[in-house]
């Protein structure tokens, strides 16, 4: 095994922002090489350089010791490099099938041989356990399913070097496991994988080498056998890191929200709700576990007023909701960390500070006469404060949100939603793409909100997260709730089974 890929002194800057500084990295053939680093450390940028989407400001790339100039993704494809991007590269208006075959030049025919290719893809997806309906449009499937499509896309292309930028952020453990099986198979076929993740367990499991990045620079590269999660965490954040532990008191508060036999497009199993009832009390975290795409998105949209149920009642703060609409819920003290931060959570072209205050702009704190004149000074001060408090890494609060790293975008949403001091917090994949430090911080925030009397609905594909934070756990499967489990000493085995739809408890 020799060095397959080598990056020498790669620097990438965007105007004044230096995202990568003098990166030296060598990756051996047939290994899984993990990149680890805080949000905004420059991992995605480095990979985008490798795939030809970005041009390095300085530095060289060698493949098999031959210097290459990757000036476009087309070139990268030719060199056998494929990538699953952190922000999905899926064309929403096209079907899963069409997305998979985009840009493919496998056979020289002019026409799309749909039947033959579909069969081929089907075999591939089955052999890797990535089941997905190929005729659905991307718009209509969940984030988790989209992730599966992204993985299928690179697999189908059969690259020599696969870059996986946080592919597990929205996968359940079980799905992640099957992804690891895939990775193992690929490595066995002497393919090379660059893996990016914030989850230590995964990293320790799958990596051969781990390179730690901090503020755009390589801190070190270590062999997996010679390190452990604690060392890695400290290397990454630059000081010692101790994750928090939380107690789980039984909630005594009043019921904040209750759903009574809710149905919503129940004929569409995976994107509907079927006879669903639940209630959440003040001081309680109700965790919903489950494979993404089993109605979680619809549940979240329902309890934030974005969709209206076909049947059943929603009672919020002892008041029956008749008028659905997010304003109604927001004014009743509901905060929402939505599943898709780019589309639902942020206005990418606006600045951090504008995104932070948009929801409460008419409050006295930010404007005179309910919005007739903005208090720019207050807004600036507030934004500066939150940027510091939530450790949002940016050049200034005036920076456009779209230019932040994925993790830091998430922090902007968390900051905005928690600062509203909600009575009910709906958090969907709240730590998706956050580094361990930030994840820990968000967890602390959620728990402290709980302790101050907020009711929390936590929807996450990350079972660890659900187990860690919830006082009460439910599992969603095909639009239904599959039983309810205590948050203290949860029956992990049963929960896992329920997630696969295998067991129904009373």
């Amino acid at each position, binding site marked *: 095994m020799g060095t397959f890929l080598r990056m020498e002194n790669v620097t990438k800057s965007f105007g004044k922002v230096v995202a990568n500084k003098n990166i030296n990295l060598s990756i051996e053939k047939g290994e899984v090489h993990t990149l680890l680093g805080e949000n905004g450390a420059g991992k995605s940028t480095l990979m985008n350089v490798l795939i030809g989407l970005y041009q390095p400001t300085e530095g060289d790339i060698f493949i098999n010791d031959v210097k290459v100039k990757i000036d476009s993704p087309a070139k990268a494809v030719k060199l056998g490099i494929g990538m699953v991007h952190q922000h999905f590269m899926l064309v929403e208006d096209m079907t899963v099938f069409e997305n998979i075959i985009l840009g493919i030049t496998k056979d020289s025919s002019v026409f799309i041989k749909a039947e033959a290719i579909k069969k081929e893809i089907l075999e591939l997806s089955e052999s890797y356990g990535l089941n997905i309906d190929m005729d659905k449009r991307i718009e209509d499937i969940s984030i988790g399913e989209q992730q599966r499509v992204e993985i299928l896309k690179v697999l189908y292309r059969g690259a020599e070097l696969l870059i996986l930028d946080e592919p597990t952020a929205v996968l359940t453990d079980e799905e992640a496991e099957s992804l690891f099986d895939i990775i193992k198979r690929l490595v066995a076929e002497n393919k090379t994988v660059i893996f990016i993740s914030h989850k230590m367990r995964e990293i320790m499991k799958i990596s051969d080498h781990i390179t730690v990045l901090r503020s755009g620079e390589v801190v070190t590269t270590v062999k997996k056998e010679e390190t452990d999660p604690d060392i890695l965490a400290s290397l990454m954040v630059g000081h010692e890191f101790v994750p928090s532990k939380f107690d789980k008191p039984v909630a005594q508060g009043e019921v904040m929200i209750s759903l009574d036999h809710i149905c919503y497009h129940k004929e569409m199993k995976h994107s509907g709700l079927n006879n669903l009832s639940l209630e959440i009390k003040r001081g309680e975290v109700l965790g919903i576990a489950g494979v993404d795409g089993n109605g979680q998105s619809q549940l979240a949209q329902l309890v934030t007023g*974005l969709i209206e149920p076909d049947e059943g009642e929603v009672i919020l703060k002892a008041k029956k909701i008749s008028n659905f*609409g*997010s*304003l109604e819920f927001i004014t009743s003290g509901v905060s929402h960390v939505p599943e898709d931060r780019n589309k639902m959570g942020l*206005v*990418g072209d606006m600045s951090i500070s504008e995104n932070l205050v948009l929801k409460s702009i008419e409050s006295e704190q*930010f404007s005179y006469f309910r919005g007739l004149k903005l208090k720019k000074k207050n807004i600036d001060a507030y934004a500066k404060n939150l940027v510091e408090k939530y450790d949002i890494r940016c050049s200034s609060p005036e920076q456009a949100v779209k230019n932040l790293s994925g993790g830091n975008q998430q922090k902007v949403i968390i900051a905005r939603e928690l600062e509203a001091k909600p009575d009910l917090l709906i958090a969907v994949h709240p730590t998706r793409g956050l580094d361990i430090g930030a994840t820990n911080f968000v967890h602390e925030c959620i728990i402290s909100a709980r302790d101050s009397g907020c009711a929390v609905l936590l929807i996450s594909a990350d079972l660890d997260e659900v187990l860690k934070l919830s006082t009460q756990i439910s599992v969603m499967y095909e639009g239904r709730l599959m039983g309810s489990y205590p948050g203290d000493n949860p029956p992990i085995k049963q929960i896992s089974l329920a997630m696969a739809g295998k067991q129904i408890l009373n």
Partner: protein
Amino acid sequence: MRLQETFFKVAIPLIAILLAFLVGGMIIVAIGKSPMEAYLFLFKGSFGSEAALATTLVKATPLIFTGLAATFAYRCGVFNLGAEGQFIMGSIASIMVATLLPKAVALPAPIIFIISMIAGIVFGGFWGALPGMLKVWRGLNELIVSILLNYVATLFMSYLVNGPMMERNIPQTAAVGDQLRIPLLSNTMRLHYGFFAALLVALLIHYFLFQTSKGLQLRSVGLNQMASKVYGINVSRFVLISFIISGAIAGLGGSIEVHGYSFRLMPGYGSGFGFDGVAIALIGQLNPIGTVIAACFYAALRTGANMMQVASGIPTSVVAIVQALVIIFVIAGTALTNLPKTKALLLKVFKEV
């Protein structure tokens, strides 16, 4: 660094204009005229005298209104290509009020004037509401609806001008009475106060967009509808209202044009103002103040070009070619400086300097 950046912001358009003149100059030489003389007249005709300056600003006035109408809608994420129709409908409303109302009832001129302005705003707003409503309620693309409504408005005006409102067998309406005309700044500076109304509207919109909560929300709707919905903003209402306001701005522009400059309607009235407005809004980078500047630039090109054509006898087609070249080069120049590659290059150059 900042200083150098601003230097480039100013220098690039200037270089671009020079280049456009250079290319245009070649054509002028080819037809046997003197480009220097032609350009001198271009400048003289737009800024060279008080009268020329006044003409430029008078011509800029309707363009400011249609430009602002486009800017406002754009900021809410909708394309209003219908400013022309809204402008015409506003003008129709005003000419009706101004020529028919005094015959029906005896009202003091200022009252009629105010009614006329309101009528322009309402008609323009109504004509803008149509694409807005069809978009919100029927999901129709506002671009196509507003284009089609332009045709309808133009034909309706043509009908009035040739039919019920025709005056003395000439296809034009009666003129607005003297006491209803917007006064001029002075006899030497023949600029009517409507120009300042346009400035005021621009400032108001600027204030609204950047200093008020509704402005912020409107911009957020324009940038990301889904997120705005999640934020509790009533997106449909914003879209509809922004269309109405956009139409009202254009309609007011029509009223002011009728009372300040054209005084009557005739075939071809208002034609091209809508599309010019869209281009102006974009040249002004969707900023109300930028829109005013772009409109003045546009108008200066037009008036200067008239003088250039008349005084040096260069055919209108060549004059139009020069105009188009100026737009092509100026926008290309700014776009060039915005490219990441150029930016990086500039950064490097400055570092070395």
